[in-house]
C-alpha cells in the first residue's frame, strides 16, 4: 500500500469559478448581485427620467405644508390648518384604531364561535358551520359594504329623533343614539379635570394617564395577591379563595379615582343637525370594524377549533384519569397546549386585519390610505412619495407584528429530542 504524497498545490484557474464548490456560490451570488443592482439601477434611472420629464422632483417637503382639508374622525387634534404630515399621523392612528378594535372583537367572537363549533349541540354546530363557511368564502369587501349599507340604509337619520313625535328613539336610557351617520355615545367628562399636557406631537389628558396608572397599579397588586395565593398553595396545598380580593383591588381604586375626578358622562343631545355633547363614532368606522370582525372571526374560529382539536383526546383522558375536573383540565392541560397551536396563525390573522383595514377606502373611513394615500396624494400630486411612504409604514407594522409572533413562537416551542 503506497501512501499518497501531499495534495498538489492547486493553482487558481478561471474555470474554478464555476466548477469549484468553494467559488461557485460566490460566482453565482456575484452574478445575482449584479443582476439585482442592474435591475434596481434600471428602475431608479427610469423613475428619475420620468420624474424629470414630468418636471417633478422627489421630496417629502410637502409633509410640512398645510393640508387644508378636514377629517371627521380623529384621535388627536387636527384641523385643516395642520400639516399633511399630521394628517398622515391621524390616518395612521385611525388605521391602528380600527385594526386594534377589530383584532379584539374578532378574537372574542372567533373564540366563542370556535368553541361553540366543538359543542355537541347539533343546532349550534350547524349554525356556526354556516357562519364560518359563509364568511370565509365571500370577499371581505362585500361584508364591509353590507355592514355600511345596513348602517346607512336601515338606521334613522338624526333628524328622525327630532320633534314631538320622533320616529326614532335613543337606546340604553337615552344615552346612545344609533343614527345612519354615527353612533352617538356619552362622552366621559371630568368635573375636576387634571388638564392636559402637551407632549409635542399631541395633547395627553392627565385624567387618562391617572386612570391608566391606577389600573396598572391595581393589576400589579392583583398579581401579588395571586402570587401569594400560589405561595400559600405551595406551602399548604390549599389555594385560598381570592376572587373577592381581586375584584376589590381591581375595581375600588378606579372607582375612587373617578369619583375624585368628578367623573360624569355627557349625554349626546340632538341640537341643530346633529347630536352634540357625546362622542360620535362614525359609521364608516363601525362598518369597517364590523365587516373586518365578522370576516376574520370566521378564520379565527377555525384556528381555535383546529388548535383545540390538535390536543389529542388522550390528554383529556389522562387528566380525567388523574382526577382533574373538566375546568382544571381545560386551564392546566388543554389550553396551554392549544395556545401554542392557536397563537401563531392568530397573529397572522391580526396581520391580515391590519392589511385589510386599508379597505377603509370603500366606506370613506380616513385611515392611512385615506389621508396619506388619498387626499394628500391627490392634493399634492406626490404619488411616488405617498405610495412609497404608505407601503413603508404598513411594512413596518407588519414586521413588528410578525416579530412579536417569532418571539412568542420561540418562547413556547416544545422541547424535543
Amino acid at each position: 500500500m503506497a501512501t499518497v504524497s501531499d495534495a498538489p498545490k492547486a493553482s487558481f484557474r478561471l474555470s474554478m469559478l464555476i466548477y469549484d464548490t468553494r467559488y461557485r456560490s460566490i460566482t453565482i451570488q456575484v452574478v445575482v448581485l449584479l443582476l439585482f443592482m442592474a435591475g434596481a439601477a434600471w428602475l431608479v434611472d427610469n423613475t428619475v427620467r420620468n420624474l424629470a420629464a414630468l418636471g417633478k422632483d422627489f421630496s417629502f417637503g410637502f409633509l410640512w405644508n398645510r393640508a387644508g382639508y378636514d377629517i371627521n374622525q380623529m384621535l388627536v387634534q387636527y384641523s385643516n390648518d395642520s400639516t399633511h404630515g399630521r394628517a398622515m399621523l391621524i390616518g395612521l392612528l385611525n388605521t391602528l384604531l380600527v385594526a386594534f378594535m377589530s383584532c379584539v372583537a374578532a378574537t372574542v367572537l372567533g373564540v366563542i364561535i370556535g368553541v361553540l363549533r366543538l359543542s355537541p349541540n347539533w343546532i349550534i354546530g350547524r349554525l356556526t358551520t354556516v357562519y364560518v363557511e359563509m364568511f370565509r368564502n365571500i370577499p371581505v369587501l362585500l361584508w364591509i359594504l353590507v355592514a355600511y349599507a345596513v348602517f346607512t340604509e336601515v338606521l334613522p337619520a338624526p333628524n328622525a329623533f327630532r320633534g314631538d313625535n320622533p320616529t326614532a328613539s335613543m337606546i340604553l336610557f337615552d344615552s346612545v343614539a344609533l343614527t345612519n351617520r354615527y353612533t352617538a355615545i356619552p362622552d366621559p367628562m371630568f368635573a375636576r379635570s387634571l388638564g392636559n399636557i402637551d407632549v409635542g406631537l399631541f395633547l395627553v389628558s392627565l385624567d387618562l394617564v391617572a386612570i391608566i396608572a391606577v389600573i396598572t397599579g391595581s393589576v400589579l397588586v392583583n398579581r401579588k395577591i395571586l402570587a401569594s395565593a400560589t405561595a400559600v398553595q405551595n406551602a399548604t396545598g390549599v389555594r385560598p379563595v381570592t376572587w373577592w380580593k381581586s375584584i376589590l383591588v381591581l375595581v375600588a381604586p378606579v372607582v375612587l379615582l373617578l369619583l375624585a375626578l368628578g367623573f360624569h358622562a355627557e349625554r349626546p343631545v340632538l341640537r341643530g343637525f346633529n347630536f352634540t355633547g357625546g362622542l360620535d363614532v362614525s359609521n364608516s368606522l363601525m362598518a369597517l370594524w364590523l365587516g373586518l370582525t365578522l370576516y376574520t372571526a370566521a378564520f379565527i374560529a377555525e384556528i381555535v377549533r383546529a388548535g383545540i382539536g390538535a390536543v389529542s383526546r388522550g390528554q383529556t383522558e389522562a387528566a380525567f384519569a388523574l382526577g382533574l375536573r373538566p375546568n382544571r383540565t381545560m386551564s392546566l392541560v388543554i389550553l396551554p397546549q392549544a395556545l401554542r397551536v392557536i397563537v401563531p396563525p392568530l397573529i397572522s390573522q391580526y396581520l391580515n386585519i391590519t392589511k385589510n383595514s386599508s379597505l377603509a377606502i370603500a366606506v370613506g373611513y380616513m385611515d392611512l390610505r385615506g389621508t396619506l394615500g388619498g387626499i394628500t396624494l391627490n392634493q399634492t400630486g406626490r404619488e411616488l412619495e405617498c405610495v412609497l411612504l404608505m407601503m413603508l409604514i404598513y411594512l413596518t407594522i407588519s414586521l413588528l407584528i410578525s416579530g412579536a409572533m417569532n418571539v412568542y413562537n420561540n418562547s413556547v416551542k416544545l422541547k424535543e429530542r
Partner: protein
Amino acid sequence: ATLDDVKARGELNCGVNTGLVGFAAPDANGNWSGFDVAICKAVAAAVLGDASKVKYVPTTGQTRFTALASGEVDILSRNTTWTFSRDADLKFTFIGVNYYDGQGFMVNKSLGVTSAKELDGATVCIQTGTTTELNLADFFKTNNMTYSPVTIETNAEGEQQFLAGACDAYTTDASGLAATRAAFANPDDYVILPEIISKEPLGPLVRHGDDQWADITRWAMNALIAAEEYGVTSANIEELSKGTENPEINRLLGAGEDNLGAMIGLEKDWAKKAIIGAGGNYGEIFAATIGESTPIGLARGLNAQWTQGGLLYTPPFR
C-alpha cells in the same frame, strides 16, 4: 409624443367621471355619453378620424390626476377645476374652460334650510380629492361655522349617502348638483341653495411638456365653441365645408386655402371631423346633454357665447 402614441394605438384614452348624468355616464351597454364625453369624441375624431375610437377610463376625484400623470389617459375630460396649483404644482396644462361653474350645496327641502349660512353643525357629503373639499373647509372657517365631512369617492356614493340621510347637505360643483338631482326619483324634494361659494372653471387638461398635444386638444375644444359662434351646426356643416363666404369658417372647416390642420400635425378637415364626431357645436352639445330641455335643465348662464353676454370667447382661428 402623445399624438404618435395615440395614432399608433389607434385609440384615444380619455379620463372621464365614473358616472355623472349629463356629463359622463355609461349606458347599460357601456356606451358613454355626455357633455365631457363630447370632448373626448371631438379629439378622437380630429386625431383618428373616428369618434368611436375612444377608451373611456372612469376616474374618481382621487384617481384622475394620477391617471393622467401616469399616462394611463391622454386627456382628462372630467369636470376638473382649473387652479393655480394644479397647473403649476401638479404639472398639468388646462386647455381651456368648457364650463364656468361654482360650488353649491344641495339639501333636503324638509330641513327647511334656505341658505348655506344656516348649515352650522351640519354633516356634509363631499367628494374626496377635489377643490370643493378645500373650499368647504375655507367657507365654514370664514363663516365661523363647524361641520362634519363625510368623504366619499364617487358621485354615486355621494348620492346614496345623501338620499339615505347620512349627510344633511351634499356639496360639489353646482352643475354636478343639478346633474345629481336630476337623477333622483323625486328631484323636487331637494333644493340647491343659492350660495355659490367658489369659482370652478371646469375644463379638460393634459400633461405638461407636450405642447403639440396641448394645442391639438385645446383647438379641438375651441373648434366646438367657435362653431357655435359662427353658426356651424351639425345640420349645415356638410354644406358649409364646401366653402363659404366667411374666411374664418373656411379656415375652421378646412374649406379654404389655409391648412391649419397641418400646423398641428392633423388633416385639413380635422375640425370638421371634431365637430361632427362630438355631435355638433358647443351649443348643440350643451342642449343635448345638460341644457334646459334635458332633465338636468342647466341654463347657459355664464356659459353663453360672449356675443350673448356669456364668457365663452374663443381665440380666432387664424
